[in-house]
């Protein structure tokens, strides 16, 4: 999903806002796109009840004589999922501000 969709969209959005970008900045945007996909995937998937990690937790607890419902496990994944979304969005916001400042500095250097 990141290669055909997110990374090109992020790069194009940055270019539309801040003009032509140096190669190093492009790569950093692409890396951020890859990172955003991983963060979303890791901390979002556990909310679904039939995903591998939920089944592993359940199986392991069952072997140790504790029977739990997959739904309970997935409900307790929600606080972390929300925290992950807040933390990572805040970091992406800061990243965008940095890009903005760098673009302003480039503009200044040119004039």
């Amino acid at each position, binding site marked *: 999903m*990141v*290669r055909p969709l997110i*990374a090109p969209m992020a790069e194009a959005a940055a270019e539309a806002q801040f003009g032509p970008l140096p190669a190093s900045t492009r*790569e*950093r945007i*692409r*890396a*951020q*796109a*890859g*990172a955003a*996909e*991983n*963060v979303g995937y*890791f*901390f979002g998937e*556990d909310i*679904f*009840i*039939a995903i*591998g*990690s939920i*089944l*592993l*937790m359940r199986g*392991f*607890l*069952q072997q*140790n004589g*504790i*029977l*739990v*419902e*997959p*739904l*309970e*496990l*997935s409900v*307790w*994944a929600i*606080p*972390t999922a929300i*925290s*992950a979304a807040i*933390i*990572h969005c805040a*970091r992406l916001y800061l990243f965008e501000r940095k890009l903005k400042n760098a673009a302003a500095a480039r503009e200044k250097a040119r004039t």
Partner: protein
Amino acid sequence: MIGLLPVYLLAGLVFGAIAILSALDRANPKRWANAAFWGLFATSFLLGDHLGDLGNGVLVISMVVIAGIVGLGQGRARNSNMEMRNSLAQRHGNRLFVAALAIPTMTLIGALTFPRIVIGGAPLFDPAQTTLVAFACSVILAMALARLMLGERVPAALDEGRQLLDLLSWAALLPQMLAALGAVFALAGLGTAVGDLVAQAIPADSRFATVAAYTFGMAIFTAMMGNAFAAFPVMTAGIGLPLIVMKFGGDPVVMAAIGMLSGFCGTLTTPMAANFNLVPIALLGIQDRYAIIKAQIPTAILLLMTNTVLMYVFVF
């Protein structure tokens, strides 16, 4: 009573069909390796109960030998082409999401309603396995729905599934393999050793130190192994169950759920998790091999601290 047996049968038949389709695919130079690999996997679903521990162990090692020494090839689905996909996509538009979203929706509905279905005084579904049974039913229903909407035949779906599976290749089974490795580690007593180490290192009656030892231990062990599935059985047998649950009376559900997610924080920081952190670097054409890891580390650290606090607040 419907339990896991039909689900395993279904999975076994699907992987068996994929093995047969692989064997028939002349476009794949390694078709026999693919057929043997998925055939063995199907066998473990269909006959695993009768093979015994040794038999299943030999089966898993055979799969590793096939994937490691011969290697698996990329098959190609018979009837797949871009024009057909584009025309179907144009015709159906966003309705294509219906079949995909049907799976989680129906799984949730099934997981909530199946336990209440009682026929002749006995539950129709094994109460311990309703989620997986509901998941399997949802997949079948979603397939039927897609069949009705798109008019494709079932063999075409299996063939497309095979092509997708070949893209992932043996890595598709990595989580299961690593979970099994973690279980072997735990059986070998690594968990107890970790638990003893932690018991010596931290104040014996500090709940917060114990929770932090578990969450940070999950993250560090996951970073070393590359996957939280291998770390979970070891750290949970070592710290989670004996200390957080038994000694301090913590809730095993909260302990397990947030413990696993602490492990995922470790996955964000390690080149060992190559499929997430290194492979995309190549796909995206980035020079710096560790650019994604660098972009993830601050989130991983902040979230690991958040997880530790969340567990401390909610587990007791």
